[in-house]
C-alpha cells in the first residue's frame, strides 16, 4: 500500500518538475527577448552597480540555498505520514554548537558584505567625479511639473525632455526641482538621485555605448508624474558637437529668459522634446535661491529682481 502511494506521489512529482521546467523555459525565452535596462548597463556607473548587484546576490546564496534545501528536506523527511523510519526527539530544543554556527556564518557573510558595501558606497558615490581622459561636461537638471529641463551652461543651450550626451565623457549633473520632489533616473546609465526644491544634488555618469536610453522620474510628484519620460541620446563627441551647433544656429528657437522659464515652469503634461538657446545666466542658481528668499511662496514666478545677484531679494 505504502509503495503504491509512493509511486503515485513520484508520478505527481515528475509532473510538477515538468511544469516547473516549462515555466522556467518560457520565462527564460521571454526574458532573453526583452530589454532589461538595469541588467543591461550601457554606462560606466550602471555597469559597476550591476556587477555589485550580482556579487551580492551570489554571496547571499550561501545562506539562502541551504535554507531552501533544509526546508524541503526536513518537511519531506519528518512528515508524520512518511513511512520511513526517522528519529523523533520532542524535547531536543537547543545545541550551542549548531546555534553558534548560524549566528556565526551569517555574521561572517554580513561582515564580508559590509566591507564590500563600505568600499562600493565610496567608490560609487554619485558626487564622485569619474576619471576619464575627456573633461566632463556639465548639465543642470531642473525637475518641473511635469517635465525635465536640461541646461547646458557651457554650450549655451537648454532642452526639455531630451538629453544629449557625448560618449566616453563624464557628465556632471547638478540637479534641483522647481516642483515637488522627483528622482532622476536613467537605468542604463546610472542609479538615481533625488531632485529637491531649494536644494542641489549632483550625479556623475558616463555612457560608453551609443544609443538612446530612457530616463524618467522615480518619485511621485503629482498627476503628470507618469509622463516625465525623456530620451537620452549618447553619441560620439562629434555627433554631440553637431547637435550643439545645430541648436545654436537655429534662430527660430526661443531664448531661455526668466520670462520663458516662468512660462515653461507652469504645469503641463506629456511634454514633447523642445529646445532653447541662450539660457539666462545663473538661472539654475536663481531657481534654488528663490526658495531661500523671505516672502517667497510656491508658484511665485521667478523674476530677475528676485535673483540674489541683484541684492534686492526682499519682495
Amino acid at each position: 500500500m505504502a509503495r503504491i502511494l509512493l509511486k503515485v506521489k513520484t508520478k505527481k512529482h515528475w509532473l510538477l518538475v515538468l511544469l516547473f521546467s516549462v515555466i522556467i523555459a518560457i520565462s527564460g525565452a521571454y526574458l532573453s527577448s526583452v530589454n532589461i535596462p538595469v541588467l543591461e548597463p550601457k554606462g560606466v556607473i550602471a555597469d559597476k552597480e550591476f556587477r555589485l548587484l550580482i556579487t551580492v546576490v551570489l554571496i547571499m546564496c550561501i545562506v539562502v540555498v541551504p535554507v531552501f534545501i533544509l526546508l524541503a528536506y526536513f518537511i519531506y523527511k519528518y512528515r508524520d505520514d512518511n513511512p520511513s523510519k526517522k528519529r523523533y526527539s520532542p524535547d531536543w530544543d537547543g545545541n550551542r554548537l549548531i546555534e553558534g554556527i548560524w549566528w556565526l556564518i551569517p555574521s561572517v557573510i554580513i561582515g564580508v558584505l559590509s566591507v564590500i558595501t563600505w568600499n562600493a558606497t565610496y567608490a560609487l558615490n554619485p558626487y564622485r567625479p569619474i576619471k576619464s581622459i575627456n573633461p566632463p561636461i556639465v548639465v543642470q537638471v531642473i525637475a518641473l511639473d511635469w517635465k525635465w529641463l536640461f541646461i547646458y551652461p557651457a554650450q549655451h543651450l537648454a532642452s526639455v525632455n531630451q538629453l544629449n550626451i557625448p560618449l566616453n565623457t563624464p557628465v556632471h549633473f547638478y540637479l534641483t526641482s522647481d516642483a515637488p520632489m522627483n528622482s532622476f533616473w536613467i537605468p542604463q546609465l546610472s542609479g538615481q538621485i533625488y531632485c529637491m526644491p531649494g536644494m542641489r544634488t549632483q550625479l556623475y555618469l558616463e555612457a560608453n555605448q551609443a544609443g538612446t536610453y530612457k530616463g524618467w522620474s522615480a518619485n511621485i510628484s503629482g498627476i503628470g508624474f507618469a509622463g516625465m519620460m525623456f530620451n537620452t541620446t549618447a553619441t560620439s563627441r562629434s555627433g554631440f558637437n553637431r547637435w550643439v551647433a545645430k541648436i545654436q544656429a537655429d534662430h527660430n528657437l526661443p531664448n531661455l529668459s526668466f520670462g520663458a522659464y516662468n512660462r515653461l515652469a507652469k504645469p503641463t503634461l506629456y511634454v514633447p522634446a523642445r529646445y532653447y538657446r541662450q539660457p539666462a545666466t545663473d538661472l539654475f542658481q536663481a531657481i534654488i535661491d528663490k526658495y531661500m528668499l523671505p516672502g517667497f511662496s510656491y508658484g511665485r514666478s521667478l523674476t530677475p529682481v528676485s535673483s540674489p545677484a541683484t541684492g534686492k531679494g526682499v519682495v
Partner: protein
Amino acid sequence: MSGAAYFASFWLGKLSLKALPPSAIQWFGASLMILVPLGIALLLSVTHRWKWLYHEWLTTLDPKKIGVMYIIVALAMLLRGGADVALIKTQQALSAGSNAGILSASHFQQIVTAHGTIMIFFVAMGLMFGLINLLVPLQIGARDVAFPFLNATSFWLFFGGMVLVNISLILGDFAATGWLAYPPLSELHFSPTVGVDYWIWSLEIAGIGSLLAAINFLVTILKMRVKGMNFMKMPMFVWSVLGSMLLVAFAFPILTVTLTLLALDRDIGTHFFTATGGGNMMMYVNLIWAWGHPEVYILILPAFGVFSEVVSTFARKRLFGYPSMVWAIAAIVLLSFIVWLHHFFTMGAGSDVNAFFGIMTMVIAVPTGVKIFNWLFTLYRGRIRMASPLLWFIGFVVIFTIGGMAGVLMAVPPVDFQLHNSLFLVAHFHMMIVGGVVFADFAAITYWFPKIFGFKLNEKLGRLAFWLWLIGFLLSFVPLYILGFMGATRRLNHYSASLGWQQLFIVSAVGAAIIGMAVGVQILQFAVSIYQRKANRDKTGDPWDGRSLEWSTPSPVPFYSFAKTPQVSTRDAFWEAKKQKQTSTPQPYEDIVLTKNSPLALVIAGGALIFAFAVVWHIWWLAIVGLLIVIATIILRSMDEHTEYILSASEVERLDRAYLKAGGLSK
C-alpha cells in the same frame, strides 16, 4: 464674503456639494460605503440584534471580544484594500501607450495611497492587535489586560480611523501622494484638497489608539504573568509581542508628532516641511521613516511569534533555540531604530552616512536568519503534521527568504540607486509584509479559530486557499521584480508601450486575480465552516495538541478565561502538564474580579472621530464639540469607582461545570 457664504463656511467649513464623487467608479465606491453599513444595520434590525450587539460587542471590555472585533474590521478592510488592488492592476495592465486605462491619474494615485495606508494601518495592524488581544492574556495566564477600558478605547480609535478613511470615499477625496505623503507634494500648495487631511487624521487617531494599546500590553506582559512564568518561560509569541510593543511605544510618538506638524503646515501655515519659509522637507522624510522602519518590525515580530508557536505545535517538538530566539528579537528591536535612512539613500547624503545605514540594515539579516534556522531545526526530528497553519509557514519561509534577499540587496546603497522606488522595491516589501505578516495572520486565524469560536475551520478549503494564495502571489510579484529591473517605477498610472512592460503587468494582474480567488475561497471557508460547525466542533479545548496555556481552557474560551488560576513551572506549560499527566493538585475555585462593560470607550472614539472629521473639513465649531465629548467622557469615566464586579467562587464553579459538561472535557 457674502452673508450666506460666511454662514455656510462657518457651519460647513470647506464642505460643499463639490465634495461628492466626480466619476462613476468613485460613485460606485461611495455607494458601497453607504450600502454596506446600511445593509448591516438592516440585518441587525430584522434579526432584533441591536441589543445583543450593544451588550455583547459595542460595550465589551473583554480583550477576547475586542480581539475578534479587530480581526473582523481588519478582514473587512482587507477586502477594501483588495478592491483597490483590482483597480490598480486593471489600470496598469491596460494603460500602455495610447490607452489611458480606466482611471484618471489623480484617482489612480488616490487608490494607490489608500491601498498602502489601509493595508498597513487597518489590515496588518488590525490583525496584529486582534491576535495580541486574543492571545497575550491567555498565554500568560491572565484573565484580562492591565487596562481594559484603555484597551477598548484603543480599539474604537482604530475603528474611528478606519471609518474616517472610508468616509473619504463619499465626501471629498483621499491623498494622492503615496502612502507616506512626502512633502512638498503633500503640502497645501500641491495638494489643496482634503485628501491629505483625511490621511493625516485617520492615521493620527488610529496611531494614538496603537500607542495606548502598546502601553496596555507592555504593562500586561510585564506585570500580569501568572505566578511561575518568568521571562524565559513565556511563550515565544508573548516575547515577540513584548518586542513589538516596545517598538510601538518608542516609534508611534514620532508618527504623532510628524503628522501633527504636517497638519500644522497645512492648516495654520507653519513652515516645518515646506520648501520655502525655512522649512526642511527632508526632515519629514527622516521623521516619517524613524517611525516607519520600526513599524515594519512592529508588524513582523508578532508574525514571527505566531510561526514559533505554529512550528513547534505542528512539529510536536519544543521550539529550538529559545534563548537565541529571544536574543534575536532583542537585536531586531534595537537595530530597527538605526536603519531608517536606507529608505532614502538617493537623497545625496555622504558615503559614510549611507554606508553606515546600509551595513546596519544588513546586520538585521543575521538575527532574522537565526530565527529561520531555529524554525527549521524545530522541524528537524519532529513529527510534522501538514495542517494548513504549517503550510502557511512553508509559504512564508519561501517568500520571506526571497524577499529578504531582495532587502539585503537594496541595503547596499549603490545597488539601491538602481532599485529604489522601482517595482523591485514594491515586490520586496510585499513579500515581507504579505509573505511575512499576512501569511502569519492566516496561519494564526486557522490555528486559534477553534479556541475562540469552538469549532475548526474547514481544512480542505484552507489548503486550497493557501495554494491559490501562494501561486497567485508569486505570479503577481515575481514579474514586479523583473519590471523593477526594467526600470518601471512605483505608482505609475500609465507608461509608454515601447518599453515592453505590458505583458508583465498583465501577468501580474492575472496573479492578483488568482489571489482574489484565494480570498473568495477563504470567505467560502468561513461560510462552510460556520455551516458545518457542529461537525467541526472542538470538544477537547485542545484540538491541535497545543503547548501553551490557552489550550488548557475550554473552547470557546469562557468570558472569565480561566476557572482556576493556572500554574506554570516550565516553558510549554500545558504540553508539560499533559506529558506528566499531572492534573494539578485540585485547587479550590476562587472569586474572580472582572471588569464591567462600558459604552464610554465608544463615546470617546466617537468624539475623536467627530473632531478629526471636523478638522479635515475646517468645521471648527464641530471640532470643539468633538473635543469636548472626548474630555467630558474621560472625566466621567474617571469619576466611576465601581468599574469591576465579582464572579463568586460558587458561580465560577457552576459555570465551569456547565462548560465541562457541554464541552465534554475530561479534566
